[in-house]
């Protein structure tokens, strides 16, 4: 009885699935889905190698400082960095005094101590990077209806985060002629910018890094080409997203090494205890 019931229930589900499968397959044959420009022309991020890659990765502090400079002078006009405090910059090799100076260069929201009205004041080391726009509506209004995303976690919030940022920054280009030939309706709308590394190909952000030397690197640093600045800011965003990366790698090395040692001992002990016991 249970067996018959079970087979009936089984038939219910399997027939329903076969029905779904059949209909789906039929639609697939009669009306194959049309190709889309996003599908044909979207590119995976380019390769990017950073000092922080791999199990022994360490931050290249000089590069992070350059990346921070690019963020400060270019990106910060539109993009917030809300999870990072100025004090964190000491990890990039800045001294306490330098951090204070950097912080004081930013205006952060404050309160007038006599009237209680909202105002701004120079930042201190414990402040977080201020947001460039008061709220989402202001951000939309100033940016062609697109909100510039916060960058603190960008390197973890996209697949291949750092490589994605680097590819996006260096990937702006004219829309390929083949694309327009194949998909005449997919012309980049006015106010958007074609970039094959962006998921739907057209991006509200105008190319932010437009010319070599846009940011002036101090002596002893590589030439600030668009390529170099993109790499540096990507490296910087890896740090903002995962400031504990170095400590994680180092701790991991010690832990795994110890565990291998302990496990070998455990295995020998196991062999000992079971010695002579066939199983």
């Amino acid at each position, binding site marked *: 009885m249970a067996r018959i019931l079970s087979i009936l229930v089984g038939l219910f589900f399997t027939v329903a699935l076969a029905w779904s499968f059949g209909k789906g397959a039929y639609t697939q044959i009669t009306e194959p889905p049309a190709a889309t420009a996003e599908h044909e022309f979207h590119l995976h991020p380019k390769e990017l190698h950073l000092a922080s890659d791999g199990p022994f990765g360490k931050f290249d502090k000089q590069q992070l400082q350059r990346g921070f400079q690019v963020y400060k002078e270019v990106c910060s006009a539109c993009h917030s960095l809300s999870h990072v405090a100025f*004090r964190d910059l000491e990890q990039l090799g800045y001294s306490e005094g330098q951090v204070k100076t950097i912080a004081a260069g930013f205006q952060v929201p404050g309160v007038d*101590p006599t009237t209680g009205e909202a105002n701004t004041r120079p930042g201190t*080391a414990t402040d977080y990077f201020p947001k460039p726009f008061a709220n989402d509506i202001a951000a939309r209004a100033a940016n062609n209806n697109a909100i510039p995303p916060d960058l603190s976690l960008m390197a973890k919030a996209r697949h291949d985060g750092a490589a994605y940022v680097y590819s996006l920054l260096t990937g702006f280009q004219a829309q390929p002629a083949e694309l327009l030939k194949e998909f005449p309706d997919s012309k980049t709308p006015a106010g958007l910018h074609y970039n094959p590394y962006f998921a739907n190909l057209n991006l509200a952000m105008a190319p932010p890094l437009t010319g070599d030397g846009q940011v002036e690197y101090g002596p002893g640093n590589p030439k600030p080409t668009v390529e170099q600045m993109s790499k540096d800011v990507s490296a910087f965003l890896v740090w903002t997203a995962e400031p504990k990366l170095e400590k994680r790698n180092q701790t991991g090395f010690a832990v795994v090494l*110890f565990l291998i040692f*302990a496990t070998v001992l455990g295995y020998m002990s196991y062999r*000992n205890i079971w010695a002579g016991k066939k199983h």
Partner: protein
Amino acid sequence: MAETEGVRRRDFINIAAVSAAGVAGIGIVVPLVSQMSASADVLAASSTEIDISAIQPGQAIKAVFRKQPVFVRNLTPKEIAEANAVDASSLRDPQTLEERTKEGKENWLITMGVCTHLGCVPLGAGEGEVKGEFGGYFCPCHGSSYDTAARIRKGPAPKNLEVPDYTFSSDTVVKIG
């Protein structure tokens, strides 16, 4: 003999394996314990700058330092004289006013607003608050009285109100911590 050697070697490996497990256990406990101590953002917010230009002699303000009240008091000459009139060695926690203030700024008495008995906030800094029988601060919880140098004079508190580390950034701004 060979037999016991073998047994010893086996025991040794078992003991070593159990010891390794013990070390691993300690290794796990360390982060579990240390995660509860103050985090980086809390430690970073450990200095405060206070504008003292508006405090008239005889007045005091309560500011916040490390999430606790700190009293900044502009002593009158009379209060200074009262504090200096006491023989410091006769006190429970012997200290002179001079030792509790900065040179040349003896009128600025800056102390934590935390009673050294059990951590209540003493009265006396606010306008019109009871200052206790020694004219300084009075803790309402268990009746500790502090004098005009914020030294303990009466009641259960064992120590004078703590003087935090501070420096005068200018004549009107004090940086605490």
